[in-house]
């Protein structure tokens, strides 16, 4: 039930923002639409509602994940721009394997997204059973799975683990 309520509220907030400034007619339609969405998809979107009740996780998300992410995105853009305008096109591309210790869906999704938007790397496929990500790397510095994991995923993995997995009983799995 709490999953449906959370989905209903977030859908209603997004709807109201899209129809800024909210007026009664828009709100009425929004309540109806958000209610339909919540009834139909209720249990699929929010899987672990109890995680939303921890303010610590929001703190880590907004003050640790977001700044690191924005900084990496900026570095990635300058890196790509440098490679593109360099006359010799300095690239050594390849697809490498990396290992992750994250287990929950949302954490792996965010990890793959972060990898795609950070310097020189892009996730190509995820093998969830073996916790392996295949990464296209524009400048391969190591073919070894441990070394590549250390360079590519470790930084985000640590932050995402504190946000999504610590204290949920998921670590031992």
């Amino acid at each position, binding site marked *: 039930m709490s999953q449906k309520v959370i989905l209903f509220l977030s859908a209603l907030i997004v709807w109201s923002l899209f129809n800024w*400034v909210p007026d009664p007619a828009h709100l009425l339609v929004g309540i109806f639409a958000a209610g339909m969405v919540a009834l139909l998809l209720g249990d699929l979107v929010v899987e672990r509602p109890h995680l939303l009740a921890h303010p610590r996780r929001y703190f880590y998300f907004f003050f640790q994940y977001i700044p690191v992410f924005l900084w990496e995105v900026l570095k990635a853009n300058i890196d790509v721009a440098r490679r593109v305008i360099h006359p010799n096109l300095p690239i050594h591309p390849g697809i490498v394997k990396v290992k992750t210790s994250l287990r929950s869906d949302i954490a792996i999704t965010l990890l793959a997204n972060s990898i795609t938007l950070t310097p020189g790397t892009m996730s190509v496929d995820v093998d969830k059973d073996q916790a392996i990500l295949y990464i296209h790397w524009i400048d391969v510095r190591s073919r070894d799975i441990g070394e590549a994991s250390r360079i590519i995923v470790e930084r985000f993995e640590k932050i995402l683990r504190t946000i999504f997995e610590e204290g949920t009983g998921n670590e031992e799995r």
Partner: protein
Amino acid sequence: MMHTLGLGFIAVGLAFDLFGCLGLIRLPDVYNRLQAATKCVTMGTCSILFGAFLVTGFVSAGIKALLCIVFLSLTTPVAAHAIARGAHRSGIALWSGSVVDHYADDRQEEVESSKTSS
């Protein structure tokens, strides 16, 4: 003040979009092109949208721009991931100068083991 800052963000965004398009032309294969396209175009477009928000302020257009930043930064990596995976599975080879391809090796093993077991 806000207006000038917004125009600055729009200019930076346009520059990065330009680099992304240059990369789309210059880089050799679909995977490298996707890298340039996703990274530069995501940040370039987000920067343009943020500039638009600064110029317009908290009115309906500005808030829509902010929401678009969130949706864009969540969906572009997923789209790139889907395109890259689809391209690899349909047999598009990496550029000839590529160094290593663990994905193809693992897929090859998978195919062989499924052949022997059946």
